[in-house]
Every structure is written in C-alpha cells, then in structure tokens.
C-alpha cells in the first residue's frame, strides 16, 4: 500500500486540464454524430426501398373495371342446367351490344378488352343467383391487362403506334367505353381474394397468403414445443460435459446454415425419402421449422438464463420439485422473451424463399390450398414467380406483393415488441 496522504498528481496546470476536457467533449460529440449518421443512412436506405416499392406497386392496389350488361336469355342458358350454358356467346353478345353503332369497330379487338375469364365470371355469378336467368345482369368486369395499364397511364398514348402495346384502333375502342361511363377503378380486392392466374388482372395473393399461413402454422406447431423442450433440457437439466458442448456448438452452427441447404435437406428427406407431396405447405413448414428451431432454442435459453436465480432458490427452498420450479416460475417469467423470439423467428421464416423454391412451392397454382397437403405457393415464392413474368401488370403486382409481405412482417414485429413491453414483469 502506498501512503495515501501524499497525492501523486499535482493540480498545477488548469489550462492543460481544460484542453483535455475540451477534447473529451469533442470525442463525445463525434461519437454521437457517427451514430446519428449511421441511423440516417439506414433510414434513408429503407426509405428508398419503400418509396421504390410504393411507386412501382401502388397501381396494383386498384384495378380497372368495366360495367357490362349481360343479357342472360333462356335461349342461351337453360334454367335446368345453367352450368352448361353458352356463356361465350353471352359474353360476345354483350360486347357487340356495347359497340353497336360504333363506326368501324374491330370486333376481334373488342373481344379482348374484357378479361379472358369473363365467361366464367358471368357463369359463376349466375350460378350463385339463378333468378337472373331471362333478364339482364350487370357486372363489373376487370379490364384486360393492356387496357388496365392504358387506364392507369402506364401505356403512353402519345408514343408512336409501333412502340405501344395497343394500336390506335384499340385505343379508340377504349375511349368509347370511357365515354359511355362504363370504366371505373376501385380498390383491387382481387389482389387479396384471388389466387394466382395467368392474367395479371385476375392474379391475387390469396393462394400465397393461405400457403404461407399453413406453412407458418406447421413451422410453429413443430418448432415452438420442440425448441422450448430442447432449450429447457439444455439449460436446466443437461449435465455439462463434452456431449452437451457438442450439441450446443451444433445448435449455434445450425442457426448460421444458409437456408438453401435446409431446402436441399427438405428435398432429399421429406420429398424423396418420406415421399411427401411436392409444393405442399406441410413440407415447407417442416423445412422452415428446421430453420426456426435453432433461433427458438437460442432465445429460449437466453430468456431462461435471464430469470433471476433468487426466484429459483425461493421455489427450491419451498420444496418445489425441479419440474415445479420450471413450470411454475422459470418458464412463465421467461415466456415474454420466448414469445418475442419466436415471433421474430417466424417472421424470418415468412420471408424465407430459397428452401421453398427447392421443394416446389413456386408452382403455378390457381386456387388457395384447402389444407397442408395441397400444393400451394407462399408469399415470397409468389413474388418470385411474378417477378419472372413479363406482363406489365405483373411488374406492379410484384411490388404490391412485396409491400403486402412487408406489411405482414411489420405487423409480426410490432406484435413482438408489444409483447415484450406489456408482458415483461419486473422483479
């Protein structure tokens, strides 16, 4: 010990100390500036991303519709068996009706203004309401993609005819419809309620959303209990030895394995060995569960570790068995953390594309899956498919799909933050 009565520092140079202080404040300021600059960069990049998506995708949230009156005459549609009606004729009659009196109307071009599936839309409407047979049925029919783009201003009519998707004659036909007041552009519910389609004006995300939902459900049902059980065992029961060390290292490594590897694994194991159906949300969910499992195990262990030891001691000291200590005290206290981590893990799984491509969830499927065994797409793979399609309408839909996916992700993360703030107990 040194003699504490003799200070070894002399406080003789106030100038030097003041200069030192100034330099320390300057360093503080610089550090804060770097932080703010980094955050601004991050927010700026995010802003660019979202702005690009909104500019590219907002038009897909509306859809051009044309009001058409169909004459459901009994000659064409039999009351006894309306499904076998001559729907193609019903539609072409209605189109002719719209353009009667129009000089030099090109009826072949006119037939392509309404979406390709119009006859089925009319048929389904009549089947839902057979009472209209014999009278006139007015429906809002989606316009085919080129006309939709024309209406949205994406196709520029001032360009020379040779460089436009629509020639002057087609544009003239369109203008007739606009003049008749048949054209409207309401919110595009089809984007959420239709499944995929070859025709952009009909394509929607319903199949992808349902597929993603089923896949995440399978993923959650498997990875949540398994992950928690594994974490509880490793954290509370496992002896510290070489074997558990190896398990631990491997779990941490598993979290870093590229997702495409899990896809290959799913392909080899679930499809080829177990013979599960291709493109099924069940298989997608299983693969995603493999990927989410390490995340859940790691967050669960961290949450368990964060429970203060005094609570365990209190419970043990009361004569609680180990099982009771965990079930009554430790797990409930760790649950908010576990749930938060799980939701973030699921959000990651929701955005995962590569493994789903490998197990065939990028198939072209025109109806939402009715269960986990039916072929389906998922949100990210649907975006992938649309991004690959040349039609102008799919370009906007790709961006819109990304916005919808981001919306789901933000919602899930918001739920996670809410849980963290409102369920967490203080002790």
């Amino acid at each position, binding site marked *: 010990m040194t003699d504490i009565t003799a200070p070894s520092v002399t406080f003789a140079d106030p100038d030097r100390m003041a200069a030192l202080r100034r330099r320390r404040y300057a360093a503080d300021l610089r550090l804060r500036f770097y932080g703010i600059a980094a955050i601004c960069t991050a927010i700026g990049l995010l802003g660019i991303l979202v702005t690009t998506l909104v500019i590219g995708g907002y038009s897909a949230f509306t859809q051009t519709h044309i009001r058409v009156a169909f004459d459901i005459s009994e000659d064409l549609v039999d009351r006894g068996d309306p499904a076998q009606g001559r729907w193609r004729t019903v539609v072409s009659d209605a189109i002719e009706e719209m353009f009667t009196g129009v000089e030099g109307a090109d009826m072949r071009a006119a037939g392509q203004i309404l979406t390709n599936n119009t006859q089925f839309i009319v048929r389904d409407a009549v089947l839902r309401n057979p009472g209209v047979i014999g009278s006139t049925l007015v429906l809002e029919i989606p316009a085919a993609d080129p006309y939709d783009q024309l209406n949205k201003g994406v196709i520029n009519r001032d360009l020379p005819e040779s460089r436009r998707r629509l020639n002057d004659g087609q544009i003239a036909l369109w203008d007739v419809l606009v003049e008749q007041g048949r054209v409207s552009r309401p919110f595009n519910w089809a984007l959420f309620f239709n499944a995929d389609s070859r025709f952009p004006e009909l394509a929607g995300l319903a199949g992808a959303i349902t597929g993603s939902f089923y896949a995440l459900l399978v993923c959650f049902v498997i990875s949540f209990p398994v992950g928690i059980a594994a974490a509880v065992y490793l954290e509370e029961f496992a002896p510290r030895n070489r074997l558990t060390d190896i398990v631990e290292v491997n779990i941490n490594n598993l979290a870093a394995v590229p997702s495409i590897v899990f896809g290959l694994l799913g392909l080899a194991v679930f499809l080829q060995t177990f013979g599960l159906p291709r493109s099924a949300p069940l298989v997608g969910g299983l693969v995603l569960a493999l990927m989410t499992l390490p995340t859940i195990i790691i967050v669960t262990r961290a949450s368990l570790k964060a429970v203060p030891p005094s609570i365990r*001691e*209190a419970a043990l000291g*009361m*004569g*609680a*068995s180990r099982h009771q200590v965990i079930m009554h005290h430790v797990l409930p206290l760790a649950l908010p953390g576990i749930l938060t981590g799980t939701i973030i893990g699921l959000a990651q799984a929701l955005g995962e594309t590569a493994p789903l491509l490998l197990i065939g969830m990028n198939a072209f499927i025109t109806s939402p899956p009715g269960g986990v065994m039916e072929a389906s797409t998922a949100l990210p793979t649907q975006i992938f498919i649309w991004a690959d399609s040349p039609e102008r309408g799919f370009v906007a839909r790709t961006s819109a799909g990304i916005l919808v996916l981001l919306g789901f992700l933000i919602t899930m993360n918001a739920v996670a933050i809410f849980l963290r703030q409102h369920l967490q*107990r203080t*002790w």
Partner: protein
Amino acid sequence: MANPAPTPAMESFQTVRTADANANPARLKADGVNVFYGEKQALFDVSIDIPEKSVSAFIGPSGCGKSTFLRCINRMNDSIEGCRVTGDITLDGENLYDARLDVVELRARIGMVFQKPNPFPKSIFENVAYGPKIHGLARDKTDLEEIVVSSLKKAGLFEEVKDRLHAPGTGLSGGQQQRLCIARAIAVGPEVILMDEPCSALDPIATAIIEELIDELRENYTIVIVTHSMQQAARVSQKTAFFHLGKLIEEGPTEGIFTNPREKRTQDYITGRIG
C-alpha cells in the same frame, strides 16, 4: 472422485465447546460435516447440535462457510454442480443425506429465508399459498385462505397487507417483502427455519421488526440464523457458533461467547480484529 488428503490443520484442530445446561434438547445435529466445491474444501469437520425452539446464530468473517453450512441443512447445495457433502446431518435421528430421503419433503420441514428478499412475482396471497398448494396442505379454498392469513399473522405482516392480498408481492417494501418470505416459509409448517443474513438488505427499523419477529417465532420453531452483525447475534440468539476459514472454532451459549470467549480467534473476531 477420491477425497482430497486432509490438510494438517484439520488433524490438530478441535472445536471449543461450552455446554449450556438451560438449552432445549437438540433434534437437529451435524456430525463431521465436510463440504467440497469441486476440489476445494469449504467446510472442515463441522459438528454441532442445534437446540429446538430456540435461535442459533452462525457468525464469522466473510467466506468462512456459514452459508455453505446453512445450505447443507436443507440440502440446497444439491443444486450446485460439483458440490459434495460428507458427514451426517440428522433430524430426529434421521440422516438428511440418506438416499431414500425425499428432498422435497425435507424442504417442507426445513424452510429457508434468503439474504435478499425474493418474493415470487405473484400476488401476496399467491406467494404464501404456493407452498401449501404444492405440498397439498389445504383441503379446500377456505382451508388455504386460513393458512395464508395465519401465516401472514405469524409473520407480523397481516395488518399491513390485509386489504391488498392480491397486489403483487414485489410491490412491498424491502422489510415487508422479507416478512412475506418468512410467512411463505411458515405456511408449510416447517420445524426448522434457516435464515441467511435476513436483515442485511434492510434498514434499521425493518431490521428491528424482523428481530422481534424472530424472537416470537422461537416459541414454535427452531431457527438458525447467519448474520454479520454481532449485535444482532447477541440480541436474538441463545446459541452462537463462530466459523473461521471453514472450521467451527467455538460454539456455546450466546452470552458466554460474547462476554467470555475461550478461543483467541473468537475474541479477535468479536472485538473486530479479524473479519
């Protein structure tokens, strides 16, 4: 793993004991207890009788093994990896380290109160009701309520919390929390209550209340208390044991230890020269 070779100090060492003619009979006895944390020995050949329905205090400098010994009595050391206990601790002649003994039941008979108040993050009622619930002590709800109320009364807390039994236990003051922990321990009807520095996180007023409470509880319970405060040991205990470097140096009636210690190290400690 073989026992580490006994250190030379261990052989030449003998606890100084003063008999107390007025002491209650002892049902809790330790005989030749050694504790190892891995290779390191923390307690050396500790033997002591704990008289029933009285307060015994363990004193000694930090790190001398008081808590270690206390935790041996209700086998809380079981959950520490690498901790090994040899020797006998018996309650009514029954060896607590017998392989057939049920630890869960043992801890219902020997309760514990910790240094830092550690109520569960649940309501006051739930805190006290937890023990009776897991041990199946209450036949029905009214039974349980009765146990909770009487435990809170015995712990001197009932009057202060009677109109907020369902408020969180963690919302009480430190002293109230510690009394809640005592109520929680009492609720399972233990014979022995172990207290590890129960007042070290409390202010003097809360400490005085707890000391008074300990004095009352002595009527019905055997109490073992670890304390750093010599005054506290002198005030509340009938028997005192002085530990130093893992050894039980001297034990005897509290008055004797404080007024007339027979061992030099005891004297040095209570006069403040070591510690």
